[in-house]
């Protein structure tokens, strides 16, 4: 009986919005340090590598290296921000502060909480991705209004990484556990998904593996849009991100039900 209940499809109510609003209210209080923290790291990499390394490099796929890197950074910064939010902040709310427990005593269900958390995480990572995009625009690295279409892609990628992060949160005994995910998943993914250099530079085996990772598909969509061309295989890339977002959310939900509805 318990096992079947655990696997039932998500049945959230609109009250999930209040979970989102709760997190938004906390974020608003800490918005400036939080934004700086979110932005500083990707900015240093983008500007440092972009200008420093870029000076030694020829054009890459028809664009300057820093423009190439800016598109990758939009996506990697989205991934980083979503992962941190879903894991460290999510774990605080679930396990340390018992915020979810308090919410679950109100007329909300765990499904509402999880949807609220996933949408919130995607929103927060969207802000991070967008901030990089705005800076790229200010630096004159964006040449086409098509770049606007990168925004829904960033949001979708945010949802995909939110779901993956929430899986780790559901499994985690403590904060230390998240280091595994960062060192074994996030960092390698960033290196093989075409953020810093074209994927074609990698051995064929690695390319095959990278083709299954969500970050690569986000990059494949965002980079052409920022440079003013329509991406190829749009449906495929979008479909991969959607499948990641939906599946990872469902797995996270089942695992969290197992953890909290004992």
């Amino acid at each position: 009986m318990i096992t079947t209940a655990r696997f039932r499809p998500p049945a959230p109510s609109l009250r999930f919005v209040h979970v989102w609003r709760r997190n938004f209210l906390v974020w608003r209080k800490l918005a400036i340090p939080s934004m700086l923290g979110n932005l500083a790291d990707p900015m240093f990499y983008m500007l440092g590598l972009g200008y420093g390394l870029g000076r030694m490099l020829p054009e890459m796929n028809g664009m300057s290296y820093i423009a190439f890197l800016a598109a990758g950074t939009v996506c990697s910064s989205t991934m980083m921000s979503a992962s941190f939010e879903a894991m460290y902040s999510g774990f605080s709310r679930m396990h340390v502060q018992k915020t979810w427990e308090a919410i679950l005593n109100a007329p909300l269900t765990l499904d509402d909480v999880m949807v609220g958390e996933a949408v919130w995480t995607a929103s927060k990572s969207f802000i991070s991705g967008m901030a990089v995009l705005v800076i790229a625009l200010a630096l004159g690295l964006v040449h086409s209004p098509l770049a606007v279409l990168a925004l829904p892609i960033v949001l979708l990628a945010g949802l995909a990484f939110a779901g993956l992060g929430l899986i780790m949160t559901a499994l985690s005994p403590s904060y230390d556990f998240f280091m595994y995910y960062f060192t074994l998943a996030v960092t390698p993914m960033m290196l093989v998904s075409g953020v810093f250099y074209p994927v074609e530079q990698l051995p064929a085996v690695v390319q095959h593996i990278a083709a299954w990772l969500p970050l690569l598909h986000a990059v494949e969509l965002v980079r052409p849009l920022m440079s003013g061309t329509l991406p190829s295989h749009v449906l495929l890339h979008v479909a991969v991100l959607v499948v990641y977002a939906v599946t990872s959310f469902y797995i996270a939900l089942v695992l969290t039900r197992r953890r909290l509805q004992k």
Partner: protein
Amino acid sequence: MPILAVHGLRKSYGALEVVAGIDLELSRGECFGLLGPNGAGKTTTLRLCLGLTEPDGGDIAMFGLPVPREARQARLRVGVVPQMDNLDPDFTVRENLVVYGRYFGLSRTALEQRIPELLAFAALENRADARILALSGGMKRRLTLARALINDPDLIFLDEPTTGLDPQARHLIWERLQQLMRQGKTIFLTTHFMDEAERLCHRLSIMDRGRMIAHGAPRELVARHIEPHVVEVYGDGVDAWASQSGAGLSDRCEKTGATLFCYARDAAPLLQHLEAQNALRYLYRPATLEDVFLKLTGRELRD
């Protein structure tokens, strides 16, 4: 219709049956206390009643609504004070109330009316804009209680509400709970403080190893299960005295730690005898709920 009705409720974790077929009924305006040692199944019972975990068997109806199926609807009329404070540390006192009220779908106007009342109730009017970290344990508990009342609930669950509080803070919580009862609220309380249960509850159940082992009003339980007089004896030679005289003069004797508890229907012979024992000290008192509790659940340590 009872406010809460539970029949044949069961819940196991692996081979361990934590709730082993219990029945409960709460009627409007009463304070019901669930007592039991650590690990008796009290908190699991509360979680089941709130629809936070699926039972393995039995039925629960809150306000006539089946739980857990319609628990969300039922929880609209419920307030919960959890065992551990889970206030939002990033928010002020007032923000905690606002945010919690939104979970119930309360409008801004409704909250603007409600919050000053609740701050007064919790004696936190001057702390509305304080951070949670700046509050004392007693203040946090009062705020948690105020938060549980944000939706003006008909039924309030309190899971060990005064654990870890100093006497002043406990008395204030008790006074507030009595105030709520006068307003006609129904209270479901778990505790392992017998004085708290005796003071607040109209009716009690004692739970141990997942089962209900006794029910009744506090005085009734004492009258039914225990001799009315208790003499606690301690000092050098208490063991020898117990076997020579104590056991014969009382109806029942039990040793816990260094203290001998003598239970008697008539304490006069016992007291007379003790007067003459210079090495022993003693305390004579009426039997309390704690004596019942220890008799029924045993004296060994529970962790």
